[in-house]
């Protein structure tokens, strides 16, 4: 796989992540797009195409939600495209933007992800019921907490893990988020706080689940030529990968995300990464639940199977002292989880970290290569983006 041409991220923007935004979905998309444009120095008229990422229409209660959000996302009188792969959308949308430019069809692309979950009353969990198979699963009235509790159980029982091995992820990420200006769920916690929080569906505790959130995030992508003329700090998209597993999730061994591994291998191959554990300096794996961060680090080949909790206990993922800082942003557990915008938040984080602009969240030692990953659908899809600076 040799890409036709190089693509860089040249701007990023993010709204505050909050529980009930006063802004409409359109206003959220606009705010993130505007901030990303301003940070890149480009005007909307200089943007060739717009990609929008947003997950189920049911949240906003709008059919063809992409069309509804078009002009607020800057898609007015432009090629405008909404893509989605469920929760994996936030990292897939910049991959779609990458395709626009790497193919030679466009030179600049605005990629924005928006989600307003609070429109769904009393709780978006009801909308999630409609993601299940309408014949086989919906009659059982499953919800996300249950199916992820199944997966967490499987992960724990396969490798003999205890809840105490996983809960520190929440402590770390919510603490990291204290330094993120957009954060919704930042908190200084002890391990005991997490373990003592309410059990939602065994073994998932309240403080091991990300919140429902309203928010938007955006990046600006540009071709190599354009990027070099605009900034001396382009962040290159060096690898892209995505992979969708079967819809029959009950037939899958939930202890390991093979689809994430396949997506990661695709991205690493393109980026020329042979030893990810040595070459990747920062990881932003998808962490809607505490165990998912560990699960995904294994899928990303950054830890041995079942060994991510050991690495966590040894402090390998600490932002300041670890050799592989994980979720320096604070992740979904700390910053919040507006589905597609949460994945995009991770991509924005790579942009700021690799440019040395992450402020108090900055990972020390001039990191050069970083990976962001998102996950979604029925524990089914992995999307991976590798970024680097020279």
């Amino acid at each position, binding site marked *: 796989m040799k890409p036709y041409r190089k693509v860089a991220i040249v701007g990023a923007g993010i709204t505050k992540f909050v529980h009930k935004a006063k802004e409409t979905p359109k206003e959220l998309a606009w705010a993130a797009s505007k901030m990303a444009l301003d940070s890149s120095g480009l005007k909307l008229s200089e943007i060739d195409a717009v990609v929008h990422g947003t997950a189920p229409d049911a949240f906003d209660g709008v059919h063809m939600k992409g069309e509804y959000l078009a002009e607020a996302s800057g898609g007015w009188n432009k090629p405008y495209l909404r893509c989605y792969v469920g929760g994996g959308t936030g990292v*897939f949308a910049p991959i779609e933007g990458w395709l626009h430019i790497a193919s030679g*069809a466009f030179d600049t692309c605005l990629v924005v992800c928006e989600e307003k979950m609070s429109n769904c009353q009393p709780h978006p969990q009801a909308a999630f019921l409609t993601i299940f198979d309408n014949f086989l699963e919906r009659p059982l009235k499953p919800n996300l907490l249950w199916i992820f509790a199944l997966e967490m159980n499987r992960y724990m029982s396969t490798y003999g893990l205890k809840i105490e091995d996983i809960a520190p992820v929440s402590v770390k990420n919510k603490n990291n988020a204290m330094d993120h200006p957009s954060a919704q769920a930042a908190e200084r916690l002890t391990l005991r706080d997490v373990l003592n929080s309410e059990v939602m569906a065994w073994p998932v505790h309240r403080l091991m689940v990300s919140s429902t959130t309203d928010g938007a995030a955006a990046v600006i992508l540009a071709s190599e030529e354009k990027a070099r003329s605009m900034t001396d700090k382009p962040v290159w998209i060096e690898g892209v990968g995505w992979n969708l597993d079967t819809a029959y999730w009950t037939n899958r061994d939930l202890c390991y995300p093979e689809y994430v591994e396949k997506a990661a291998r695709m991205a690493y191959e393109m980026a020329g990464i042979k030893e990810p554990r040595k070459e990747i300096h920062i990881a932003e794996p998808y962490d809607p639940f505490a165990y998912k961060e560990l699960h995904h680090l294994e899928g990303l080949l950054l830890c041995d199977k079942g060994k991510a909790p050991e690495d966590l206990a040894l402090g390998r993922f600490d932002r300041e002292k670890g050799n592989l800082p994980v979720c320096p942003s604070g992740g979904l557990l700390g910053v919040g989880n507006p589905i597609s915008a949460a994945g995009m938040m991770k991509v924005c984080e790579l942009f700021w970290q690799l440019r040395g602009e992450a402020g108090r969240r900055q990972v020390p030692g001039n990191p050069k290569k970083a990976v962001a990953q998102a996950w979604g659908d029925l524990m089914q899809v992995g999307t991976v983006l590798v970024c680097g600076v020279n």
Partner: protein
Amino acid sequence: MRKVAIIGIGAVKAGATSKELSYKEMTYAAAKLAYHDAGVDPSKLQSFVTLAEDMNEGTSIFDEYTPDQLGAAQKPMHTLCHDGLVGVADAAMQIASGLFDIVVVEAHSKASNIKNKACVEAYALDPNWVRPLGIPAQALAALEAAYYIRETGASGEALYEIVRKNKGNARLNPFAAYPKNTTFKDYQRSPSRYTPLRDIEIARHADGVCVLVLACENYAKSNGSVPIWVEGFGWATETSSVESRNWTQAAYASISAKRAYRMAGVSDPRLDIHIFEVDDTYAFKELQHLEALGIFEKGDAWKKTLEGETSPKGAKPVNVSGGCLGLGETLETKGLYQIYELVTQLRVKAGKRQVANARRGLAFAWRGVPTTSGACVILGN
């Protein structure tokens, strides 16, 4: 850019209903035909794109259910919320970027599952400003039709002619759901749905599936298929708000086409393109789109239609497949049925409906009310 070709096509017959078949079974059938047509071992397929909208499917995050019936499990696959033609553009970009050599595009319609279409369409209107007014989304098309007819003077005879032509063309298309001989009396007697739109000039929904296989030049030339080249593509959205859109021009069509023409090196679409599949969800839309695409001058399309220029034997054959009026309105699959027709024509395999000397074709699809989104693809042999 790397050259991209369509090397395989597969479709099932569009129909008002598709009893006893799920969308998965229909998709599997179409995929098998497409892979066979392309002469590709399904395990060699590298990436997949589906076009779908949650509320049409009745499932949130519908992309969950897309891989198995295509043989795409544990492969790169994603979903786009647009017409099938954007799927063709997306697959072409995947190949042009150097990422993949063979990519599959799929779209399907199970419109017969939608119990209350007007209700679903109402959910596409802005929830704060437009939905509370209680205007049916279809009425937006009627307002636009009234404006268009007043501006151009398009006659009822011309609108009838489009209905007659397209439903008549469909009689030669084995995939069409609504072939019919139509008389002017049928047109006059057809009840008014939203003035000035008559029932007969509104395309009816149909179920259907279409699957395409696209490949890079090297692969297309080496595997013995007859490549039909994707020479240009473009898509555009004007605006979702009814307050600020241009009600007469179909700007989304001209913006899409401009990009596609530039890419394909088309300087004059009237001379350089020989066959057209142009969205006719409402009869007047065929006229409006043809003008926006630069095929006719503004206000001329209805006259040229009456002169027979857009008939299968005319100088600019439009919707030889039967279009949406004759083949059926198949949601996101509309554009892929257009591509199916163009590929068949450019391969000179269209039998009785074969258009003579067609070397380049244009497909244009619109997303329907209440959107102003459209996409254009140009193919050549």
